[in-house]
């Protein structure tokens, strides 16, 4: 959808405007929205603007940022991951229950989980299976394993891990450092390296990439491995923040991560993605939840509001598409 629209702009837009829109890109709106929501929060509670306030508001969003990046790599391959939430929950349980009792076994478990994600990529690519059903099926495997290890919430995350996820400097909040470094590294890899371009191409034109000599299965495995890696990071930071284990803690991350990628300018058909957009999208949906809390809205409404936001963004995008199509037709 967006790729069509961008082409149309390049064709009909006269010089300057098209160059401007090419420069701005799909990440621009979500970044503006994230800054705007943050500004509203500062206006409501000025203490949010202090380094401590920034840590307290953005800190809880770090797991969502990693979950969004995981989802982004899957969407880049033209797939969708409905299992990322349960996967994060399983990582959380492993860190809170297995790691403290046997560090080596816990580490081995996490490595096995990463390999499992790669294997899922192989299965989906080789047998050309629908990712929706496979990842939905696997989500029950992750949830089931987590429940076997820890039937009811409990356990304790090792204090070292909690300290690591909460590191900070006196001047700059650690949260900001993590956000900037992670976004920069992933964005540079995806946008500026040759293999990054191949990975982005897989969702839109796998056949073309194959003819250019790149392995489609290899790329799929890389994408799923990256998704598994960021899923583990999300679970790690979530564990550090909550301090305990809960098999169902990640369930809401499925919708939120998809929403973050889509709000961040990603599209399903064509596998278009934006790293900066996905990170900003995660901040938008996450801060929206915090903003609702500030306004005294019951947490019951949160999921519904976040779902509605996703619908709204997609509706507006398709309306914009219709307007562009109508203009072109004239």
């Amino acid at each position, binding site marked *: *959808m967006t790729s069509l629209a961008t082409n149309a702009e390049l064709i009909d837009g006269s010089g300057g405007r098209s160059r401007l829109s090419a420069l701005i890109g799909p990440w621009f709106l979500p970044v503006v929205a994230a800054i705007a929501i943050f500004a509203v929060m500062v206006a409501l509670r000025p203490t949010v603007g202090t380094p401590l306030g920034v840590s307290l508001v953005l800190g809880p969003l770090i797991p969502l940022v990693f979950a969004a990046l995981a989802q982004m790599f899957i969407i880049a391959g*033209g*797939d*969708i991951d409905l299992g990322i939430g349960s996967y994060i929950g399983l990582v959380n349980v492993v860190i809170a229950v297995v790691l403290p009792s046997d560090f080596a076994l816990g580490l081995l478990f996490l490595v096995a989980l990463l390999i499992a994600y790669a294997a899922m990529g192989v*299965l989906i690519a080789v*047998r*050309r*299976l*629908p*990712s*929706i*059903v*496979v990842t*939905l*099926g*696997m*989500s*029950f*495997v992750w*949830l*089931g*394993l*987590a*429940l*076997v*290890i820890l*039937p009811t919430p409990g356990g304790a995350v090792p204090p070292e891990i909690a300290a690591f996820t909460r590191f900070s400097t006196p001047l700059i909040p650690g949260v900001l450092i993590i956000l900037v470094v992670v976004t920069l590294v992933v964005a540079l890899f995806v946008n500026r390296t040759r293999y990054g371009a191949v990975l982005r191409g897989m969702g839109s034109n796998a056949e073309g990439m194959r003819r250019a000599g790149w392995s489609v299965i290899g790329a799929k495995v890389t994408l799923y491995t990256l998704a598994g890696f960021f899923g583990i990071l999300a679970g790690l930071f979530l564990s550090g923040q909550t301090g305990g284990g809960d*098999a169902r803690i990640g369930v809401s991350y*499925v*919708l939120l991560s*998809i929403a973050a990628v*889509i709000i961040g300018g990603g599209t*399903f*058909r064509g596998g278009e993605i934006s790293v900066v957009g996905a990170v900003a999208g995660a901040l938008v949906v996450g801060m929206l939840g915090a903003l609702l809390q500030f306004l005294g809205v019951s947490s*019951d*409404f*949160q*999921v*519904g*509001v*976040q*779902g*509605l936001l*996703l*619908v709204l963004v*997609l*509706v507006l995008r*398709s309306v914009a*598409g219709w307007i562009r199509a109508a203009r072109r037709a004239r």
Partner: protein
Amino acid sequence: MTTVDQTPQTSTPGTAGAFVGRVVRHPSFPAFIGMIAAWLAIVALSSGRGWWDTFSAAAIVGTILLIAGLGQMFVITGGNGGIDLSVSYVMTLSAFFACDVMGGQDANLVPGILAGIAAGVAAGLVNALLIELVGMPPLVGTLAVGFTLQTITLIYSGSVVGVSSPALRAFTTAYWGPIPVIGIFGVVVAVLAYVVLKRTSYGRRIEAVGQNAIAAGLAGTRPSLIRASTFVLSGGLAGLAGVLAAAYAGGAARNLGDNYQLASIAVVVIGGTLIAGGRGLVSGVWAGAVLLTLLSTLGNVTRLAAGWQFVIQGILIVLVLALARTPGSRR
């Protein structure tokens, strides 16, 4: 996307071998085999459980899953990445709505059932609009609608005393001699779904659109309208399933639909319906629904932890997909 109907259309009548071959090659055959295997395992592992009791108990709970699964089957058969992830949320909301209208009174039975179905149809209409008019991918549209419904249910259910009508509750647990009445109801619904899908012009259009929307469009159907109708149908069936689930449990509960999101898709996949669309298999959905119910009975009989039951269900779905003879197209 070339979809070949796996069922041999011609067979020499009269020869038993040809008939057996047809049965074995039928895409829903594995689901029936799995169903019988699970049935045998339960009877073997649990001393004292009768053959028939095991099956008829599964047929009762399985009927609710069957009805939700049939809606899912219509949506998936319409193709274009069709999937309805709102089924579980629709079921819960419809259950509360129906129980609210019934208020535990038999006098309000019919309005209650209709209210539950109407709520489902309304949700299906929103799904259809978002997907076919706005152009949202079915996955995102139905998931977003589902989460919105969840929020509505959360707020609405606080003020509802969710008690089903006693007559409907009696219906879900009644027996005609050895046969559970709701099991017969399930078979009737399945036969109706079969007739609609395979014997009416509307059903043939759903499969045609799922196989090749462009060709079906050139042949005079409106693919987006047909697909939109499947979402409404799925919503209505999920609503009915929710009403029945609430009646069976005696009332509505916030976690009533939870297990049906995956299960409604699982029964379709296990039953041999093409996940890419174009071929629905009602008999497979029925066998898949009974199979899944028997599996959870098996889990209870062997005192398997709930976690392992989830693991087995998940692996089963992925395995069936991976081993299916016709690999679907991506997504």
